[in-house]
């Protein structure tokens, strides 16, 4: 047998190299990381307002997070670096979070939600001013793709499509798993803020799909046409 031909007619040193790790990379969603440590820094330096619910728009606005929706980036992956020194009570909405991160936030009496945004809504969230100046009505947020549906509907990951009752059960479970006393947010003075949550179709806090925001006139125009209302509530 010729040297190198032990495997047959396709010797290893003549094979076309294949890296299956990269298979389908052009379709994969990317979630650039933001650590709990840097989130804490943003809060401590007063670049994030903790008296309001935090979402990707406010984090991008704080300037502490580089984000390019045009590069297949789908939002924030909150990582667990600095989980043991994290000490802020916040209501945050990110796009990806691990169990430890969820535990770190809930231990401080905060609330975390993982929510999916389609690329178009991410462009809007990255630069709302640019969008409002284009004079268009705010679109609806689209539903997640089939390969992400499990994450965003499961209560363990605090998905935005999960059943709220199951989420509260999971909160308790996680507290028991990590061994901390779950603070009762129902008796909190900022309960309303902690309960703030976006509708699955909503992109901006306080603004509904179909509304037109005019920054020059400082006004919001809401549609009244039946068909438009039906379209935007779909």
């Amino acid at each position, binding site marked *: 047998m010729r040297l190198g031909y032990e495997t047959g007619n396709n010797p290893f040193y003549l094979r076309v190299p294949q890296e299956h790790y990269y298979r389908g990379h052009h379709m994969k969603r990317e979630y650039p990381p933001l650590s709990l440590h840097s989130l804490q820094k943003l809060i401590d330096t007063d670049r994030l307002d903790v008296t309001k619910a935090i979402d990707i728009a406010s984090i991008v606005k704080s300037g502490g997070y580089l984000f390019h929706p045009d590069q297949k980036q789908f939002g924030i992956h909150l990582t667990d670096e600095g989980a043991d020194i994290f000490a802020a009570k916040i209501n945050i909405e990110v796009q990806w979070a691990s169990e430890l991160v969820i535990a770190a936030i809930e231990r401080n009496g905060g609330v975390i939600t993982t929510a999916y945004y389609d690329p178009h809504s991410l462009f809007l969230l990255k630069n709302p001013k640019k969008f409002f100046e284009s*004079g268009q009505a705010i679109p609806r947020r689209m539903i997640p793709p089939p390969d992400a549906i499990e994450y965003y509907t499961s209560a363990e990951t605090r998905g935005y499509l999960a059943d709220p009752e199951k989420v509260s059960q999971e909160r308790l479970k996680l507290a028991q798993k990590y061994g901390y006393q779950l603070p009762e947010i129902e008796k909190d003075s900022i309960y309303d803020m902690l309960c703030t949550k976006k509708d699955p179709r909503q992109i901006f806090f306080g603004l509904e799909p179909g509304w037109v925001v005019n920054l020059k006139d400082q006004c919001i125009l809401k*549609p009244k046409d039946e068909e438009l209302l039906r*379209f935007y509530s779909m």
Partner: protein
Amino acid sequence: MNLCLRTKCLKSNILGSLYRYSTTTEVVEKNDPVLIDDSDETRAKDAEIEKKRNISRLSPAHFNVVNDRRPYEIPKSLAHLTVKYHRKMYGKYGMESGVNPSLCWPSKKDIEEKLEYEAVAYPFTIKEMMETAAKRRQEEKETILKRDRDIAAKVAKLDQWKKELNDKIAKKAAEVQAAKDRKERIVEEVRRHFGFKLDPRDERFQEMLAKREKELKKQEKQAKKDAKEKLMLAKLQQKSAGIGEAQK
């Protein structure tokens, strides 16, 4: 220059002091209504003044943009006739732009197209996707469980299979050994027949060997036949005995 300025100052001062010390005061009639002159003439005059004041040397469009007004009142290119441009003008310059805000919302046709696109881009509802995902997960789990069961069943039988295999190997080895022994025996017998050491490759030796082998085979066959007959006989006897007993 300096001198000139000074004279000017002096002049005004003098004038001011003269006014102050003048005996006749200007009577301001407060009851007169204030009339704003908006005749064409004054307007033209104002415009003229404004034009003279504008020393920026900007083009009219840029001057408008700088002063937060829409650049063109009349469309200058095809792009200025599009809905997108009008929306942009409204978004940027508000009601002042003179654009009807109802343009900001999609038309019926746009909505239809959007819905058609969504029907293709998002063919499944959330519930359907959830069900599919749950089903897939269940199937994966079942595949793993099935494999586990298969392996467990096979492991349970492993000892038996090991024993069988070892027996088989031992049996085969024994057979090979027996055949070898037999052959050796025959060769020895043939050698003894000749009475002297003969090369096994010799023709005579081979002949004798074949003969001896034939004999042995015959003997074996006979023995087998005898054993069979014996067995048959025994069976027959048993049968006849059985029938006899039944008859009794």
